[in-house]
């Protein structure tokens, strides 16, 4: 009792502190906490952990500590997806009822859905492509006309302003949509999809609204001349299409087509989302195999052979659709060989050779790419932290995006103005409409190339992380291609005579690969994507070597860009393996405890109270059999989820009602699926005072065989169970099968290997 009053008084004082008190308190805090930690050491050596320390520490803890945002946090906003199938009695009944035929039908409808996903993703890619081409065309015609007009009479600065204003206007529209309607559509979307495939429920990431904002935003930002590409967003778009199509309904539009109802759960949806991501990659780069491998690389823990084959089907359909519709648009119907959204051009067959002596050069280029990529990521990391801390209001974010657009236009203009040879620059900023100021005298002057690389590097780094939807693939490829070509040119200048340095285009390709690999650190899928996009298998080995080196060198400094952003979003992301040197941690130390449990037959009032408790927003509850009238925790007999309980409460499945009205329809699995994925909050469910006294029998609905581990299990072992199975809750039991704790995603994700050994992340509200 004394503890509680003390706690209250501390927190009460915290709000009306005088400066003097504040100072003295600070001193006490630090003394106390350091004392506490000293004590910790002592405690650990004397195994026995006694309880009466906590009151001393509690005040320190209960004071809401505020720290500036950093990467060592885990947000409470993110939850896990239920990838583990709940094999309750309803499920078993349904399975018994289903005939052999209906399983066949399910398999066929999986293929149909994958085909649809590919088709729609291809259509979206086609739409983006055409819209960008059209808008950029209009814009550049306008600017070009203006420049031509003012070149003679003077007033080029007005053209500059016109260009900047046009760019800003496009970007403003896109940024407004993103910042005010759907902030999750910002960026390339690859980190979000990566998290989704990892098993993290990123709020609103696969909604129809997100897709619309994403497509609109990417058109605006590319047409607005930002240093961005439209490839990353394609992956996100494909994933949203997949998540939508596979459900056979749209919750946003409130339309239910009554098809594909079997697939309305996280396990099935995840498979389709990986197909959608693959279809997106395949449409973006014209690389179907690369798409499949991308999905494999990012979400590989849930794979099987048939799924791979279906995903490949979706990718192929997507490439085909894009090619088909683009061929109609370009008035060559039936010509199916256009290479996706990105066009590397083709290497002539006689240029594709490389020799043994060039391989060390390629490796050097890979190392340069790794260093530059790491630099890019570090700069972007600091910038993103600044943005999260200071530029967090939507209107400020829109302003920032507009400023970047204006500066990009200014820089491009200045480079055209002050350099005398015809640069590749214009082709870059306009993406689709090269602006020809001079007359066809295009040589790649080394100085211009160098300047271009430098400027574009900083512009791209500045642009990534703005509140616009846009990807980083194209800018990185461009930066890399520019310095790669520079490298090739310098080589041919240095070595005169005997050695014939074939085509600097080859070095441009290697530079592009190195830079992209250095930034995103993808390996297998990126190799295949580049090989497929250039349509050239000969360079497979050099590209692989370059990417390998870039990854090794880059990882020495900092993680890949997507991982940096995932960390900065405080997402509880589970990597492939538990951090090394964590075998000494046991489940007892990792788990959360005590656990809120329910009895097998529980009072409705208790359930409602627990669910509506906002401070403990639990999602899974172990179901126990309480030994009669004893204080000991009961034995585990099942696990039930919040979503299931909510459906049960909504349908008022109470023991008393079942008795009184026998005619009442029995609850089926379909009722749970209909509520998926947006289960109503507990507040919207009305439970009367009488009903609170009723009882609820959970036996039928709970998962009777949840995964459990003993307390002494080591962290890597827990991890090996948790990550590949895609678990959401893992119950920790003692030797008599009594619940002692619960391991969730956040308990595992908080350990990571930092600079000083094992570190622990903090939980925070974001």
């Amino acid at each position, binding site marked *: 009792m004394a503890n509680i009053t003390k706690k209250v008084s501390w927190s009460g004082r915290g709000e009306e502190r005088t400066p003097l008190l504040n100072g003295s308190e600070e001193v006490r805090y630090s003394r106390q906490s350091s004392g506490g930690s000293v004590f910790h050491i002592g405690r650990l050596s004397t195994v026995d952990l006694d309880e009466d320390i906590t009151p001393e520490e509690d005040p320190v803890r209960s004071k809401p500590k505020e720290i500036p945002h950093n990467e060592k946090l885990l947000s409470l906003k993110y939850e896990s997806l239920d990838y583990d199938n709940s094999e309750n009695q309803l499920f078993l009944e349904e399975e018994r009822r289903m005939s052999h035929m209906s399983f066949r039908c399910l398999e066929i409808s999986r293929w149909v859905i994958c085909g649809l996903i590919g088709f729609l993703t291809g259509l979206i890619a086609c739409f983006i492509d055409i819209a960008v081409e059209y808008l950029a065309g209009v814009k550049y015609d306008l600017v070009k006309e203006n420049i031509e007009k003012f070149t003679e009479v003077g007033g080029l600065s007005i053209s500059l302003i016109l260009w900047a204003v046009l760019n800003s206007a496009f970007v403003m529209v896109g940024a407004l949509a993103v910042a005010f309607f759907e902030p999750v559509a910002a960026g390339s979307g690859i980190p979000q999809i990566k998290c989704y495939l990892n098993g993290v429920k990123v709020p609103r990431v696969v909604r129809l609204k997100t897709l619309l904002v994403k497509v609109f935003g990417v058109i605006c930002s590319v047409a607005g001349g930002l240093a961005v590409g439209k490839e990353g967003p394609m992956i996100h778009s494909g994933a949203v299409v997949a998540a939508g199509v596979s459900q056979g309904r749209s919750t946003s539009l409130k339309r239910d087509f009554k098809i594909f109802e079997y697939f309305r759960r996280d396990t099935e949806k995840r498979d389709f989302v990986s197909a959608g991501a693959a279809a997106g990659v395949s449409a973006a780069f014209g690389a179907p195999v690369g798409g499949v491998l991308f999905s494999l690389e990012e979400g590989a823990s849930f794979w099987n052979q048939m799924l791979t084959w279906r995903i490949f089907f979706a990718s192929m359909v997507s490439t085909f659709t894009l090619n088909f519709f683009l061929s109609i648009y370009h008035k060559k119907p039936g010509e199916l060989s256009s290479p996706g959204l990105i066009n590397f051009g083709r290497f002539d067959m006689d240029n594709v050779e490389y020799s043994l002596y060039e391989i060390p050069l390629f490796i050097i280029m890979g190392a340069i790419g790794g260093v530059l990529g790491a630099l890019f990521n570090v700069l972007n990391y600091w910038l993103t932290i600044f943005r999260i801390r200071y530029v967090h209001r939507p209107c400020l974010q829109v302003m920032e995006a507009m400023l970047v657009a204006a500066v990009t236009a200014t820089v491009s203009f200045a480079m055209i103005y002050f350099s005398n040879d015809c640069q590749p620059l214009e082709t870059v900023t306009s993406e689709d409409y090269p602006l020809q100021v001079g007359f066809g005298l295009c040589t790649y002057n080394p100085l211009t190339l160098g300047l271009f690389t430098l400027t574009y590097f900083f512009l791209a780094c500045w642009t990534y992380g703005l509140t616009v939807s846009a990807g980083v693939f194209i800018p990185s490829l461009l930066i890399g291609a520019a310095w790669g070509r520079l490298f090739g040119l310098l080589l041919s200048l240095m070595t005169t005579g005997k050695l014939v340095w074939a085509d600097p285009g080859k070095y441009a390709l290697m530079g592009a690969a190195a830079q992209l690999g250095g930034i995103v650190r993808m390996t297998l899928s990126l190799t295949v994507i580049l090989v497929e996009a250039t349509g050239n298998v000969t360079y497979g080995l050099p590209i692989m070597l370059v990417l390998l080196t870039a990854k090794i060198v880059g990882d020495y400094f900092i993680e890949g860009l997507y991982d940096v952003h995932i960390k900065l979003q405080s997402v509880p992301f589970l990597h492939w393996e538990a951090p090394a040197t964590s075998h*000494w941690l046991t489940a007892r130390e990792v788990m959360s405890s005590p656990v809120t449990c329910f009895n097998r037959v529980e009072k409705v009032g208790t359930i409602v109270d627990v669910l509506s408790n906002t401070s403990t927003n639990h999602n899974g509850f172990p179901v126990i059999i309480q030994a009669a009238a004893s204080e000991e925790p009961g034995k585990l007999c099942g696990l039930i989820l919040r979503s299931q309980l909510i459906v049960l409460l909504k349908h008022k499945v109470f023991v008393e009602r079942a008795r009184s009205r026998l005619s009442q329809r029995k609850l089926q699995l379909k009722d749970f699926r209909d509520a998926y994925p947006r289960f109503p909050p507990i507040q919207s469910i009305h439970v009367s005072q009488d009903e609170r006294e009723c009882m609820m029998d959970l036996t039928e609905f709970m998962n009777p065989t949840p995964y459990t581990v003993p307390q002494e299990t080591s962290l890597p072992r827990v991890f090996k169970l948790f990550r590949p199975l895609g678990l959401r809750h893992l119950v920790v039991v003692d030797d008599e099968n009594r619940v002692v704790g619960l391991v969730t995603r956040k308990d595992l994700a908080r350990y990571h290997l930092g600079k000083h050994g094992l570190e622990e992340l903090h939980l925070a509200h974001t």
Partner: protein
Amino acid sequence: MSAVTGAGGGGARGSAVWWTALALIGGFVLSVRAAEESDSGDAARPLSPLLAEPSGPGLPAKFPDDLEVSESCVEMLRLFGERYVAAVNCLVSSARPVRVCQNCYQAYSSFNDIYTNISSGQSGNVSCQDSLMRSDRLMLLFNLYSSLTDIWTSALCTQCLTPDQKSLTNSTLDFISYLNKSLSCFEKYQENHTELCMDCKATYKGLNEMYSTMLKNKGYCIDIEDAMNVTRRLWSKKFGCTVPREETVPVIAVSSFMLFLPVIFYLSNFLHSEQKKRKLIHPKRAKSNHSLMNIQDKFS
């Protein structure tokens, strides 16, 4: 993505000295005539080396009748050779400055006709297609034909010709006359460049506009591109008629203003926007609550 693969770029289109170009363009109309006449003259001359019988030891010139080429086919072959030589001759002689389309379209189209004749197999009672084109792996006729066609396609000559390929389009002829007009204007003011720049400006501008409309309508070919390139080079490099850039100061001013804006933006945000803080939460843990410190203690 041109930066990835676009090799050395367009490259300088020849480096003809300006006055050679000027002289040749000046006599343009005449030269077309001359070319046509010489074409017909060439055609009359028999091209003996092509089908001459080998003298001295070697493979026999003929095989027994049943496997050999018929007379009419040999005649076709001879014609093909003549016209091929004529076309190539014409192309080479109009290589610099590029006049291939306007000088050689007749030679090319007659060459094209004979090839179509052979390959369609319609002439006479015997199919020459089989005997001439399909009997060996060398496929000499086809290769010759395709090499010429490639040149013709990449020169975009069809865009300057009327649909029946029999004459130049009106816009091409207009462009040629306008070009001649500006060139004669240039010639008039050879000595005084400042006057040249003043007086020929109107015609030069007109020429440019005409060129850009042709670009837009896809009515240009290599001849016109090249002529325009040479003229532009004359105008800006030789006569130095380009408008000097006097606007560097305003452009720099506007640019630096633009570049300065983000600095203000970020500074003001840093100073005035309140920093976003995160509230830490202390999760429920069993018995001991591990802080980073004791992990490390235990670790070490």
